């Protein structure tokens, strides 16, 4: 998406809000300034969460935009304050990622030869071992039920604290704790079959 910003670099509208309450009110009212500010504040965070949940996925950028389109359209129903705004947007991202994962899994069930999600392509920094570890990690995560996969990716890759994971996944803390336990167990047994992942996991052992 990013086009050539005039004069290079990032360009943002400076939203002139007296305080965060005014920003949130503007967002609810559908003001363009407030919507631009929402993108400015949380785009990178949402992109990071989606990237960490989905891996190097060609649809990442489109999905990130879709999250903001949904957030802008649904802002009227946002009842929290600016303090909850990040969790709210991330939650929309998590639910969008879950939808994508489920659609793909359903598609694969009916069309077993359907291609795997398109890889986003090589990056300038060619760290072969790192890229291979990423590819294999997400291949294993892909075998987990979508809810477990998301929770584990958030805990493991994003290092999101447990209460926040519960909040963005829309479940209680005890549910997320149980879900993570199951996910870890499943992931470990599947990753144990892969020599590279096994080695990386063993490296981290005390």
């Amino acid at each position: 998406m990013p086009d050539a910003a005039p004069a290079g670099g990032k360009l943002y509208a400076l939203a002139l809000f007296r305080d965060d309450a005014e920003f949130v009110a503007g967002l609810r009212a559908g003001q363009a300034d407030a919507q631009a500010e929402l993108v400015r504040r949380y785009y990178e965070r949402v992109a990071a969460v989606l990237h960490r949940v989905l891996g190097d996925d060609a649809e990442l950028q489109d999905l990130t935009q879709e999250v903001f389109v949904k957030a802008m359209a649904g802002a009227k129903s946002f009842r929290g304050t600016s303090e909850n705004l990040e969790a709210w947007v991330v939650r929309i991202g998590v639910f969008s990622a879950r939808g994508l994962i489920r659609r793909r899994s359903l598609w694969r069930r009916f069309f077993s030869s359907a291609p795997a999600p398109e890889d986003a392509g090589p990056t300038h920094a060619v760290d072969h071992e790192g890229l291979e570890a990423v590819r294999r990690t997400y291949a294993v995560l892909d075998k987990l039920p979508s809810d477990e996969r998301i929770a584990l990716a958030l805990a493991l890759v994003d290092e999101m604290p447990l209460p926040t994971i519960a909040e963005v996944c829309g479940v209680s803390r005890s549910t997320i704790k149980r879900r993570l336990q199951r996910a870890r167990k499943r992931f470990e047994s599947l990753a144990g079959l892969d020599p590279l992942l096994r080695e990386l996991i063993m490296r981290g052992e005390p």
Partner: protein
Amino acid sequence: MTNLSSLGGAVRATLDRARAVRLAAPSASDIRELVASAATAKRKRKARIVQVVGVVSLAAAAALGVLVTSNRPEQLSFVVGNGAQTGEENHWIRTRQGESIPLTFSDGTSLKLAPQTRARVAELTSSGASVALETGRLEAHVLPRRGAAWSVIAGPYTVRVTGTEFRVSWEADREVLEVYVAHGSVAVTGPVLTGAQSLGKNQLLTVSLPERRAAISDGTETTPPAPAPSAEAAPSEASTRAPGSSQPARASFEQLLQSSSAEELLKLADGARMSGQAARAKQALHSVRQRFPRSRAAGIAAYTLGVTAFDQRGAYAEAAGWFETYLREEPAGSLAREALGRQLEAVDKAGQRARATSLAERYLKLYPAGPHHKIARRLVE
């Protein structure tokens, strides 16, 4: 029990490096596009709700034994070119040099894309369509009929029409809009214009976003506007008043700097920044600080100068200075958290690690869960 955190850390590091290269933060035009798509999504959802309500009403009427005939008109369709290639929503159509492509809609409306134009039909409804003109020129002949709703979106401008012949051109590079109405009337909304600007027969509206100028001329059609006319070459005031405004639209930029209020100057700077006129944005912001010292606007100007230096020029040391100025002048201002976060980021990027760490400690103490807390924590650790 194995330890998964090292694997998680390795994956995160690789992904973050990849993202930093490929997934740049959105530019101003990206943000405008996102805001526009949100509006379209909202309209579509409303249309779906109307449809659902319609279905429910129909079922209720049937239950009461009332025969209801649905006469909901069908969505329009269109063909591209002189052949019979059916057009699709959101498919870009690009014309080459010397080539014009007609779009013919099922209600009889026709559009003609001039050479070197890029456009798409963004939305089709039963009563019209919304056409996005990315760059170039299109001529429209909209069939007048009750309830017709057609619009052309050119950059940040929207031209709404019910039945008319008109021409819209949008020069994306120069951010210049031109709308000429041959018959009927249209309403144009967007930056620089005050409210919806109506145009009648034989009227030509020219808006230059970078110059913040708007002009309407009457009479016969003329050639597209010359590159951003200078203040000296401005025509008579009567023909160049900003639509809907009592102020002359072509007042020179310097005059604006002297006559505008602090709030207007900030808006002027914002508009200049959004359209890539960094130097003018800077002039407007300095003008706020000179003309309205010790005001809240002066603080905001300092903050914005910091943002401009940081984002547009990568002048991190200068940016840090402006953020510090803001914090000194407005220690409890509404942008204090952002300013401190941006300051520590700028100082870090300027290579002053010790100073950045001390700012990070201060940030975490004041805003432990603030938007810059991760950067701050990384610096402290």
